[in-house]
């Protein structure tokens, strides 16, 4: 059957071209989302007994789940704050007329290319109390060894995460800074505004969209961090770095409780989507136009 109108023919072509994508997103996004919700309402080793909202009420009252959620939020906050402060500081340093800017940009961006496997394994070795190069250097200098992964494990893995990602946020901020017209700064200089004032009144407000984007991305990736806990700390010491996705992974694939782990991943998804929407709304309200 050939469509009679031209519009009909274009529509047919469009759907023909879209067919693989429609099948793909149905099979590998929408069907799994439906299934994770369906599984979250069931219990038992095969996840085939109806549980209603049982898994959800259990998760909300489970101290281990609550603890891992709080740990994850603290981790995400540390990553967000670090990304913004360090990323912006480095971008502003790099936004000056310096020699070797391209080289600095490359050097700062290099860790961004590493897999979380490298980040995890390398830093676990470097930070090791006995074998780690940092502690061996400290001892050689007559200083006491530091057990960073025992004394402040969460901050340490957040710092390691920043080591990998700060180049990325720096490049985003750099693009944002280059979008601010030089004339604003010149006009403010003529009016007698010093660098500090110009930073607070011009740079920061005009960078708001970039800052918003960076914080949204950092929250989203911080809340779903996994490899740091799996590779560096194994969730420990104790449960100090039991990040949510690591917790869900263990409930699913070590305890083999698909129903309970599915409910937890739906809850975390709701939190992430809510966070994103709130941030975007707050960001839109805070936008400035000069």
């Amino acid at each position, binding site marked *: 059957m050939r469509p009679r109108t031209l519009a009909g023919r*274009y*529509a047919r*072509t*469009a*759907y023909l071209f*879209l067919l693989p*994508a*429609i099948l793909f*997103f149905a099979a*590998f*996004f929408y*069907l*799994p*989302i439906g*299934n*994770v919700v369906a*599984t979250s309402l069931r219990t038992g080793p095969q996840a085939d007994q109806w549980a209603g909202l049982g898994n959800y009420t259990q998760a909300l009252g489970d101290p281990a789940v609550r603890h891992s959620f709080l740990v994850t939020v603290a981790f995400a906050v540390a990553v967000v704050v670090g990304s913004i402060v360090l990323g912006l*500081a480095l971008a502003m340093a*790099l936004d*000056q007329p*310096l020699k070797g800017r391209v080289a*600095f*940009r*490359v050097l700062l*961006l*290099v860790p961004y*290319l*590493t*897999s*979380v*496997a*490298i980040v995890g*394994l*390398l830093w676990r*070795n*470097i930070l090791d109390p006995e*074998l780690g*190069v940092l502690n061996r*250097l400290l001892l050689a200098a007559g200083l006491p060894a530091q057990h960073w992964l025992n004394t402040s494990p969460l901050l340490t893995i957040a710092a390691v995460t920043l*080591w990998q990602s700060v180049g*990325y946020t720096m*490049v*985003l901020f750099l*693009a*944002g800074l280059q979008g601010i017209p030089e004339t604003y700064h010149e006009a403010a200089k003529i009016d007698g505004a010093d660098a500090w004032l110009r930073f607070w009144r011009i740079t920061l407000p005009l960078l708001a*969209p970039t800052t918003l*984007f960076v914080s949204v991305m950092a929250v989203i990736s911080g*809340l*779903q961090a996994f*490899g740091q806990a*799996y*590779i560096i700390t194994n969730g420990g010491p104790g449960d100090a770095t039991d990040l949510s*996705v690591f917790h869900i992974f263990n409930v*699913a*694939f070590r305890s083999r409780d698909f129903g309970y*782990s*599915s409910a937890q*991943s739906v809850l*975390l*998804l709701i939190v992430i989507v809510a966070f994103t929407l709130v941030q975007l709304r707050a960001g839109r309200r805070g936008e400035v136009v000069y």
Partner: protein
Amino acid sequence: MRKWLLYTVLGLASLVTVLPLLYMLSLSLQTEAETLSASAVLWPESPQWGNYAELFARAPFGNFIVNSLVVAGLITLAHLVFDPLVGYVFAKFRFPLRNTLFVALLATLMVPFFVRMIPLYVLMANMGWLNTYQGLITPFLMDAFGIFLMRQFIQPIPDDLISAARIDGASELGIYRRIILPQTRPALAVLALFTFVFQWNEFLWPLVATTTPEMRTIPVGLTLFNQEYFTLWHLTAAGSVILFVPTAVLFLLTQRYFVRGIALTGLR
């Protein structure tokens, strides 16, 4: 600001980002005794290139490399085939349910991978696709971000170009292949680069979806190797160097594209 201060800040920051990776290289060339010695060894007495051979003897590292190349390579290829085609449809065609489908597509951007992890595992188990290439590859064949990127890039191409080709009797697929695709080359390069690097480094899904060492990709194979031989840091470091070098080379060859690509993701 004073220039020396800027140079100091940037120089120190660069040392922090680069020195650990150089140390990784140094570690990969040390003897086992050097990795365990009480005093810090910054560079080995005599570089032990044999560590790399020993790594291949202790773990199926050749398999890991082939698996990573096949998985990341085929996923990248799939993105190059599908993302621009779908982006073209959303940029240039009018058809029923267009906006609905586009919103449904963009909504998938908000779905983190861990949400799909358990149902995909069950799906693959039911199909007998755990521990296979198709199991590792199919969940990542396309993504909304790549499609959106291509749509943004294709939109400014003049419609007249397409209409003229239609009047000349070109087929729809011919228009796409001969008129649209050649103009998207810079965007395709960015797309390929990012897809390959991300898939090369992907950790969670290959960890979940493989059951034997022979099917593991490098990040997973290396991590589980380290769990088994947790004292052999020189070998783990050698594996890390193998994992890192391809992305580093790609990056150095294309760093301008790379930086532009990141900046592009920040645009709304």
